[in-house]
Every structure is written in structure tokens, then in C-alpha cells.
């Protein structure tokens, strides 16, 4: 029984961290630029296909990380220039536009790779013993990477000058421009960073899920709920949202049943949208 608890606890941690990794790019773009990128899941999907292509070509799996970042970053750059910027970063207009973008990206990938499932082999096989229990090694590595990345991001956002500039731009765009911050360039870079990270997240999860053109749709559902519950534009909100949604789902799934876990998550999200639409830790 004890061993079961340890593994289930690892499962909860795994689910929360993976969700945080998936939410990250979305949270950056939504929280800082007020653009709800509905096509976020499609960027994750393109990252997963990048991993598939790299593996098919016989290259080391790590090559997929820069490959996916470059592919998704470039697409992000084009999207920012010809879709988001012309719509003046308007929340509603960009929401509709990125919805359409999602359709387009899915169809393009379907055109190139077909509708069928692709499988990406696990780059690090086997299991590791942790707390006396064996747990799949790749998942442990993913969890470690997620912790490092999230911590680094947190520190960077608080300490680095760019972080300060972004906070300035978000807080008061006109004043930020007046003191010499090039907000247009900063916004573009933020958007591109969000999409590039989505691609990297795709590489991370590709060996764990079916890789197909529509994978982004299901992957992204929980990310939206995490944003709704956690609140947008703060790092605390990101952690809180991923922790609550991922944790609730994982714990209830193990303790009660997966169907009731899903139901509970939907109810919680509805409750938040209705009573506290800005989430737990919104940007002040």
C-alpha cells in the first residue's frame, strides 16, 4: 500500500509539472500580452512533429529541442507580424484569429504527415529507483527539467532587466515607451518566446502521447483551465493553476474515478469563471 502511495504521489507531481510546462507558453502570451493564443496546442503539436522528424532522421533526440524551438519560433514570428500585430494585440480579435490559425496549422500538418498516429520512441528508456520504488526514467528526467526551467524562469522574471522591462510594458505601455523601452520589439519577442517554448514542450511530451494533427486540441483543454483557476500574468498564478488542476485531476482520478475527476475539474473551472474570473493570483 505504501509503495502504491509513493508512486501515486510521483504521478501527481508528474501531472502537475507537465501541465505547468504546457501552460507556460500560453501563460506568457496571455498573461503578459493579453493574447489568448488558441493555437497554442498546435504549436505544441508542431514541436512533437519536429521530434518525430528528428528521430526518424536518426539524429539524437536533443537535436529536436532547438529544431522545435526554431520551427515554432519562426512560425510565431510570422504570426506575430501578419496576424497579431495588425490586430493591435486586441484580446478578442486575436482570439478569433488564433482559432483560425489553429485550424490552418492542423490542416497543414495533416497535409504533410497525414491524419494517422505517429509514435515517437522514448529517448531514455528503463526505470530509476526513487524512494525504493521504480519509476520510468524519462518521466523523472522530464520532471527535473520542468523544475529547473520553471525555477529559472521565475528568477529571471524577477531579477533580469528584460523581466523588468516586460513588467513595465505590461504595467503602463505608454510610460514604458516614453522611458525608451521598445515595446513593439519586446512584445514580439515575448510572443515568439511563448510559441518557441510551446514547441519545446511538444518535444518533451511527444514520446508520451499519440502524435497526430489534432493532439493539440485535447492537450490544451487543461491548460486553459489552469490559467482560469490560477490567474493570468503572475508566476504564482501559473504554479497555483497547474497545481490545482493537475493535482485535483490526478488525485481524484486515483482515489475516486477518472470520470468524476474530469467532472470535478469542469465544475471548478465553471465556478471560477463565474465567481472569480480573474483567478486566484491575477496580475494586480
Amino acid at each position: 500500500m505504501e509503495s502504491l502511495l509513493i508512486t501515486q504521489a510521483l504521478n501527481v507531481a508528474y501531472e502537475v509539472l507537465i501541465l505547468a510546462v504546457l501552460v507556460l507558453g500560453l501563460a506568457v502570451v496571455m498573461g503578459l500580452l493579453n493574447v489568448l493564443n488558441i493555437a497554442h496546442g498546435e504549436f505544441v503539436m508542431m514541436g512533437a512533429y519536429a521530434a518525430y522528424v528528428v528521430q526518424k532522421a536518426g539524429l539524437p533526440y536533443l537535436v529536436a529541442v532547438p529544431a522545435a524551438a526554431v520551427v515554432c519560433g519562426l512560425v510565431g514570428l510570422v504570426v506575430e507580424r501578419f496576424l497579431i500585430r495588425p490586430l493591435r494585440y486586441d484580446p478578442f480579435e486575436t482570439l478569433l484569429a488564433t482559432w483560425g490559425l489553429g485550424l490552418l496549422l492542423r490542416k497543414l500538418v495533416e497535409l504533410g504527415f497525414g491524419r494517422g498516429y505517429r509514435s515517437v520512441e522514448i529517448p531514455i528508456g528503463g526505470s530509476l529507483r526513487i524512494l525504493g520504488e521504480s519509476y520510468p526514467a524519462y518521466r523523472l528526467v522530464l520532471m527535473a527539467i520542468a523544475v529547473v526551467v520553471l525555477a529559472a524562469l521565475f528568477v529571471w522574471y524577477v531579477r533580469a532587466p528584460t523581466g523588468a522591462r516586460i513588467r513595465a510594458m505590461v504595467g503602463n505601455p505608454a510610460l514604458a515607451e516614453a522611458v525608451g523601452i521598445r515595446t513593439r520589439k519586446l512584445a514580439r519577442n515575448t510572443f515568439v518566446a511563448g510559441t518557441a517554448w510551446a514547441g519545446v514542450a511538444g518535444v518533451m511530451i511527444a514520446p508520451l502521447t499519440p502524435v497526430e494533427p489534432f493532439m493539440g486540441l485535447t492537450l490544451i483543454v487543461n491548460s486553459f483551465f489552469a490559467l482560469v483557476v490560477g490567474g493570468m500574468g503572475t508566476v504564482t498564478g501559473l504554479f497555483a493553476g497547474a497545481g490545482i488542476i493537475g493535482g485535483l485531476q490526478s488525485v481524484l482520478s486515483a482515489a475516486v474515478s477518472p470520470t468524476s475527476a474530469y467532472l470535478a475539474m469542469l465544475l471548478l473551472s465553471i465556478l471560477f469563471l463565474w465567481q472569480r474570473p480573474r483567478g486566484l493570483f491575477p496580475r494586480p
Partner: protein
Amino acid sequence: MLISIKTTRRDLLRATGVGALAICAPAILRPAKAADALKIGVLVADSGPAALFGPAQRAAAEFGAATVNAKGGILGRQVEIVFADAGAPPAEVSKSAVKLMLSDKIEMLIGSHDSAVRQGVENVLKGKIPYVYTPVFEGDDCSPNVYMLGELPEQQLQKTLPKLLEFAKGKTFYFVGDDYVWARTTNEKAKKYIAALGGTVVAEDYYPFGAPNKFESSVTKIKSVKPAVVLQTLVGGDNVNFNRTFADFNLSDDIIRLSCLLEENTLMGIGKDASKNLYSSLGYFADIELPQNKAFIGELNKKYGDKAPQQCTISKGLYDAFVFTAAVTAKSKSLDAKPFAAAAEGITFDTPSGPMTMKNRHTTKNIFLSRCDGTKFTVVDTFTGVPTQQSCS
């Protein structure tokens, strides 16, 4: 004066009515004329979660129609397919079915989609034209003028489970399924067969259908319970996801898995690393060594070359539907409900998976138990002429 106008108006209405009838009459009478093409509506998954089967479904249906046409068509008429998308919600597909009937004038319908869509379509067809439903499904449907060609749970399990246990290290079963009617019905039937074999079901997990599911918690439970067999009624992405997670947790050496809906496309997604000791029980696999199947796959490859969509039991059923209809109408000489039903009962027709016999509007057919070797299926046992337990009259 007023009265006179009234009569004129009535006359006018009457005249218009007669005129309209005269104009419409040919359309109403048209089905009776033998020379026209016979239009058959075919519902395939162009969109929605099953859309990955769409191209293969279309190819199988078109090849079925071509095969029938080459032998003189149905009732002496050339068959013409009218496709419609079955990937939308049931209400939408039902509307498409009505449109197929009213404006496309189809005289029968063939469909490969889920049961919710089938029930919606049945409600609008009301038995007016024959409706052939082709995929794997749970049974318990005797709607008038509907014929089912797909595998039923009893066919997939009754004879297969004893054979499967020869590979297992015990008789304990763990069920994992999607939370909907097909999975639950299949598992209810499985419980009976397992009890008859002296086995036990240790746990059942059901996952919401179409939700972003993760399977770590079930796999962890399986790891601690250590059943001999995991019986799966997961479909599509969930099937891929579960089996990959299962293999990652290093369980595939000691525990065997039987999936009730694992075909060629899903196995590609599961991949060679995760398919050890995974079995599938279905009425058709694209690699089965039957001359009928070699001819079927060979012809499709000839037509589509490298681009031939991967056939599987879900798509191949559409080809069967045309062969079935040709066989029945050769005997019934009509598509009318009564003669069609009379001719259908007991009829045997040859398909790529071997002969099928219609009994109580379902088919007695061959069932294959296959083991996954990498991303290919190897048939380990063939059960010939497996009947259903359905009793539609």
C-alpha cells in the same frame, strides 16, 4: 362578384395542385424505373475523432461499388455512391441522412460511425430504406430494416478468451475502458465469460470519453494489483496513451493485454516499444493470409499505389456492405423492407476476411486473435464461423 372570385381561386389552387403532382410524379415514380443509377448513401468519418479512418473508408466503399458494378450492379442498375460526413454530432448527421433521402434520392444507406450517430440516423430513416451498419459495436439494437455487419463483444471474446489465457500467467483480469456504452457492454459480457473460465475481475477503471486523459494512476494500480490480463476497451488516442504508459512503467513482460478495438492505425501510434504481449481480437486484419484479402488489398494497392490508405476492420466493413447488398438483392429482386429482410436472413457472402452469414440481422463470421509484433499483427488463432447472440427478427 366576390363569390365568383372565390371559386376561381379554388379552381386555381386545384389546378396548381394537379399541375404540381404532374410535375412531381416522375420524381416519385423514378425509383421504379430500372435504367437509372441506384444511389446509395455512404456515411464515413470525414471529420471528428474517427477521421483518420475516412480515406480508407472511402477507398473501401468505392472499391465495393466498383466490384458490384463490374458484375452488373444491383438490381441490374449501376451503383452510384453519395458520401456524407458521419464525424459530426448525431443531430447533424441525421440531417445529412434526411437530405440524402429527400434530395439525393438514395435508396439505401451504408454507415460506419459510432452508435450515437446510428441511433440518430435510425430515428430519421424510420426503416424506410435498408440501412447497413458496418463497424464493431455493442449490439442490442433491432431497429427495423437495419443490418449490422460488425463484430459484437460476444464474438470478440467468447472463443478468444480461453485461447488468450494460454499466454497469461493466471486468470485475474483488470478492465480499463472509455466511459461509454460500447466499453461497458463489452465488459459486462466479458465478466460472464471470465466467470465461466474460473477467472476473476479485480478492478474496473473507466475514463471520460474524449477528455485529455492520463493513465498513470490506473497503471500504478495495475502494477500493485498484478493481474494476469488487462482487458482494454479504450479507443483511439486513449488506447495509444494507455498502452504507451503501461509499457513505460515496465509492465509488459509479466502482464498480457487484450484490446477490443486495436487496429492497424492505433498500433502505429502505440509503436514497437510499447506493443509487447499486446493482443487484439477482431474480425479482420489487413495482413491476414486469405486469398480474398490478398485480392482486396492487391486491387486497392493497384488503384492507389503508395498512397493507398491503411485498411482495417473499421474501413473494410464498407466493402462488405456492397457485397452483402448485391447478394441479398440478387435473391430479393427488390430493396423493399419485407423481401429484403426475407432474402437477407441466412444469406452467405464472401468478404476479404472470409465468408459471413447473416443471422438475425447480424453476421456469423471469422474472428482472429492477433499478437502485436512491433507495429504488425501476427494471427495466433482463427475462429471460424463465430455466431452472435443477437436475436433480432
